[in-house]
């Protein structure tokens, strides 16, 4: 899933303070799962903003809505009625959702309320961790299912750097060294020899380095 974090209240408040009526638009998919922008977060943010403005003697009208997915036109159409009533929308979706809404409703100012952070997993209750950089050509099978692109700070393909220490990464000692995990997995499954195989340099043109990408499925086109 795409993992994000809600922006600080102070920052969102500063962005909306010039408006008398706004819509906070949540997304019921990835950002809901990571507690950044689902129904609950929309309601909590709206309530916090109302209280905050009230203390300053100001009233701001806040509409609240959460659609199933902000990155699909089919779902954001449902927000048209609410959006027609406001000049600004705080989107609690990921960056894709924010831009989708911005392009469908160009008449409103779109204010992102979430910092889109990474593609990752729910590792355990309350902990989300990055796993994939979306390189466009998955080679995770070469590393026992542990991606050195998404999980090694230096994106190394041929073993750990000199900073790997006690299983942790030198860039962030809270994070497991991806190469320690790769080697441990290979040792545990009797595949250490596989790691001796040469991995050719990666062609990064399939990644974002090759510019914005498209996936075109003619079989789904109508």
């Amino acid at each position, binding site marked *: 899933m795409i993992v994000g974090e809600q922006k600080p*209240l*102070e920052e969102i408040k500063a962005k909306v303070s010039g408006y008398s009526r706004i819509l906070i638009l949540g997304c019921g998919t990835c950002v809901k799962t990571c507690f950044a922008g689902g129904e*609950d977060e929309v*309601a*909590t943010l709206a*309530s*916090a903003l*109302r*209280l*905050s403005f*009230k*203390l300053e003697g100001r009233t701001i009208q806040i509409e609240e809505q959460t659609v199933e997915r902000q990155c699909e036109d089919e779902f954001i159409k449902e927000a048209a009625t609410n959006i027609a009533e406001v000049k600004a929308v705080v989107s609690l979706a990921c960056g894709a959702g924010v831009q989708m809404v911005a392009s469908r409703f160009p008449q409103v100012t779109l204010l992102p309320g979430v910092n889109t952070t990474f593609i990752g997993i729910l590792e355990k209750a309350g902990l989300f961790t990055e796993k994939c950089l979306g390189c466009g050509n998955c080679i995770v099978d070469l590393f026992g299912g542990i991606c050195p692109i998404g999980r090694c700070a230096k994106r190394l393909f041929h073993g750990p750097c000199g900073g790997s220490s006690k299983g942790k990464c030198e860039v962030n000692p809270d994070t497991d060294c991806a190469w320690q995990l790769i080697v441990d997995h290979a040792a545990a499954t009797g595949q250490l020899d596989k790691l001796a195989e040469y991995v050719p340099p990666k062609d990064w043109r399939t990644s974002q380095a090759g510019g914005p990408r498209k996936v075109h499925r003619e079989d789904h086109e109508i």
Partner: protein
Amino acid sequence: MVMEKVHRMSNKGGAAHTRKPRITVFHCFTALEDTASLEGGDYEIQGIKMPCSSISREVFLLRAFEAGADAVVVLVCPVNSCRYVQGNIRTEKRVTRVKKILDEIGIGGHRLNMFNIVQGDEAAARRIIEQTVAELGEWGLSAAA
């Protein structure tokens, strides 16, 4: 800076209230059957009865302040005594988060507090309300109420 703001907005230095203080009490019905036994003082009580305290989501606690509460009290069962195992632990985490939001807003997280009480201990619940009322005497009424 935030704490200065909290202090400015909420601490009226013991000035007399212009109306009765309002306290919203969220409680699971195992910890406290209902809030009728807490009424009768020089304050208003709004009871929110729940099958499990973990139902008190962040927004409900904030909306209590929007609805005019000067203080919010959450009464839950003691640790390890929750009928639903972790309900009171989840509640504590939510209360902690909402306290931070209240500090950030300027209302002050001290106006929201969670207490563990033994099932049916109405005397303890009453003491908690009296203590909250006394504290409101120091803090003053909420400027957001």
